């Protein structure tokens, strides 16, 4: 039998090595996969996506913009553009670069996969928001057409990604950009957020941290050249105009009743009842449909019945049935007219 001390140190060494190789995201395997992303095909696809993105936003793309977006140097970018040109996917014009029809349809296919994935991650999983984009960037290069269609079907053929960008159809059609910039919203006007730009990631991280997402109702309280103050979900949000410019909104024709969106089912104490106003737009996909299946729709009266031993979940009486919801879910449900006399 080997010396136990020796065996123990070998054992610890093996464990350490396994962790080094397998550790999620920073392990060898994960890093190898990331390195793979720099492969030629992936670079080409990313370049096409970049060109498409600029075209959609009416900006002109150049060698420099490609190099910047992909994080490669000018020489590599030039080689990449030459290759794409020979493949007939892009054309060089006087001042900038443009997509050919073939290039555009290729780009749209990648964009479609990317946005479907973001949608899936946002709706069906609990992957956190800053990771959606990164995860989708990785997966978009490895999906066959058939897999893409299956994903789309599974999601019920969604129209928009979680940032509010339209998802191209399998025929490659796409509507133009929606809404106007939040920076241009007049003081005192309310609006619905329809799109949150996810690049550059530093600005996107600020928007996520401020909890701004498509579907959110906002109202400008104060506006100056230095800052924009918004009211949303009962909180004040302060944004720099540059940051606000990355958010698109559709202004409302009328003003929304101000107190409406402040209370949620999570605020109910056992015995209290309230009427549902709506489900927060942040609650999407499967989760949202489940809540609606349970009868949580505008107009339903709900009574908080029981707290579990741990205080979470809480059981609610919804349409004669007793349904347990976790606090995180209950906080998605906006309610009004809370009353304590809630004995059904």
């Amino acid at each position, binding site marked *: *039998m*080997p010396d*136990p*001390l020796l*065996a*123990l140190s070998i*054992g610890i060494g093996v*464990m350490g090595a396994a962790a080094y190789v397998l550790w*999620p995201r920073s392990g060898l395997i994960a890093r190898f996969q990331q390195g793979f992303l720099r492969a030629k095909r992936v670079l080409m696809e990313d370049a096409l996506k970049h060109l498409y993105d600029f075209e959609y936003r009416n900006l002109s793309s150049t060698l420099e913009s490609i190099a910047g977006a992909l994080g490669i140097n000018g020489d590599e970018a030039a080689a990449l553009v030459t290759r794409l040109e020979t493949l007939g996917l892009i054309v060089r014009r006087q001042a900038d670069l443009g997509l050919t029809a073939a290039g555009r349809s290729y780009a749209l296919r990648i964009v479609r996969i990317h946005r479907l994935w973001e949608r*899936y*991650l946002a709706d*069906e*999983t*609990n*992957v956190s928001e800053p990771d959606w984009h990164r*995860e989708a960037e990785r997966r978009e290069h490895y999906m066959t057409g058939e897999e893409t269609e299956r994903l789309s079907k599974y999601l019920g053929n*969604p*129209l*928009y990604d979680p940032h509010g960008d*339209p998802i191209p*159809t399998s*025929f490659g*059609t796409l*509507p133009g950009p929606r809404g106007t910039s939040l920076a241009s919203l007049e003081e005192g006007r309310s609006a619905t957020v329809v799109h949150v730009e996810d690049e550059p990631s530093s600005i996107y991280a600020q928007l996520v941290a401020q909890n701004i997402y498509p579907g959110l109702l906002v109202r400008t309280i104060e506006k100056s050249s230095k800052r924009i103050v918004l009211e949303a979900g009962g909180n004040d949000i302060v944004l720099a105009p540059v940051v606000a410019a990355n958010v698109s909104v559709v202004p409302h024709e009328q003003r929304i009743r101000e107190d409406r969106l402040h209370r949620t089912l999570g605020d109910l104490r056992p015995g209290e009842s309230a009427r549902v106003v*709506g*489900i927060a737009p942040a609650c999407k996909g*499967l*989760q949202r*449909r*489940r809540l*609606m299946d*349970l*009868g949580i*729709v*505008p*107009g*339903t009266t709900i009574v908080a*019945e*029981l*707290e*579990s*031993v*741990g*205080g*979470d*979940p809480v*059981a609610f009486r919804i*349409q004669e*049935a*007793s*349904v*347990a*919801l*976790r606090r995180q*879910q209950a906080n998605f449900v906006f309610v009004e007219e809370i009353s304590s006399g809630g004995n059904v």
Partner: protein
Amino acid sequence: MNGRSDTPNKSILAVANALRWEIGEGLHDSVTADLYREAERIAGVVTARSGKGQRLDLDRILDRILTSRAFGFPTMFLLLALVFWLTIEGANVPSALLSTLLVDQGHPFLKSLSAAFGVPWWVSGPLVDGTYLAMAWVVSVMLPPMAIFFPLFTLLEDFGYLPRVAFNLDFLFRKAGAHGKQALTMAMGYGCNAAGIVSTRIIDSPRERLIAILTNNFALCNGRWPTQILIASIFIGVLAPPYLAGAVSALAVVAVVLLGIAFTFLVSWMLSRTILRGTASTFSLELPPYRPPRILHTLYTSLIDRTLIVLWRAVVWAAPAGLVIWLVSNISIGGVSLAAHVVQSLDPLGLLIGLNGIILLAYVIAIPANEIVIPTLLMLTVLFHGIADVGTGAGVLFELDSPAAVADLLHAGGWTLLTGINLMLFSLLHNPCSTTLYTIYRETGSVKWTLLSALIPLVIGFTVCFFVAQVWRIVVGV
């Protein structure tokens, strides 16, 4: 039915697509809200409430008690303890009876019967000593506890208590990325892991269901309880003064169960953060009204649906295992039995992780049914260490009447306290039995998840045993 060419179809789809962009995403919400409004209107027209029903009040009072901070957990522990106690106590007598009937009497009877008919030993050996005995063993160990545990559990289920347990325990499981209903699939797993896997159907969220399936094996099943209790009393109970022996060995078994629960949470947490990160997840838990259970009906269906099906599968898998046990101990290559070859090659690995080659071989053979681990161990130990006067021959499973006799035999086989402790750990942390694996395959329809559910506990088992053995040898020195 005319003019159904491709063109109108295409234009229908194109128009639909354009309209979808125009209408936007609120469609599902508004349609569902409309449906409910209409449903509520109709319900208002056709139903009338006459005073307050008594049942509803009773439900409410029950719920207040069963989910209260003061009584929620105590009631739950008491009820579960009662179910386990009834199972263990109640199973003793019929188990002994079945064992006498099938093993002590049935086996010699079949032996003499085959002898009377002049059946050669190489036919009666594998069939009677191998296959029959393994099946008889599984039936007598497995049937009585399952026939008691499952109906009791089903009664609690029909009454409506189990959803309240899930409700109370959800906060723990939520932190591990799992569903409160997993508590029930675990409880079911203490009866039988295969039944536990089937019961994960009550979890309708895909990710949480997979977590429950992959971790169910950490619930110590009925086939492994006897091993734990026996080894605990032989190796750990004897360390304490005689009047404490029973309590100490019981505590050791409880510690193993708690370790299993700890691993359930740990592995659930790791799974939900790594490979299952991108899997669909949602939470819903309804608390159905309490209904008086129909006892006879429940007895019947739980016996048919759960007990017999699980038992049948176990027996089907045990039969070939018995055959293999007989064959490896009786087929010789170069004068040494097949089993000896295998044990010799497994011995270094077994000793390294504080077990031995015989235990590893017993676990390989006992993949079909954990019930036969102890008889296989005893038979192989006798075979290898040439212990006379015990057992009934190569490849013939047997059990000894007193734990003391087993202890003597195992000590003679070179077992130490470390071997005992590591066997208890390995019995908790190894691959599920083949019945369970087959059930996992049936439920998930995926080879990948089936393999993973075998590999996760196996890797953990080897790792834990390895480190325990090395640390033990450094600290204790043996």
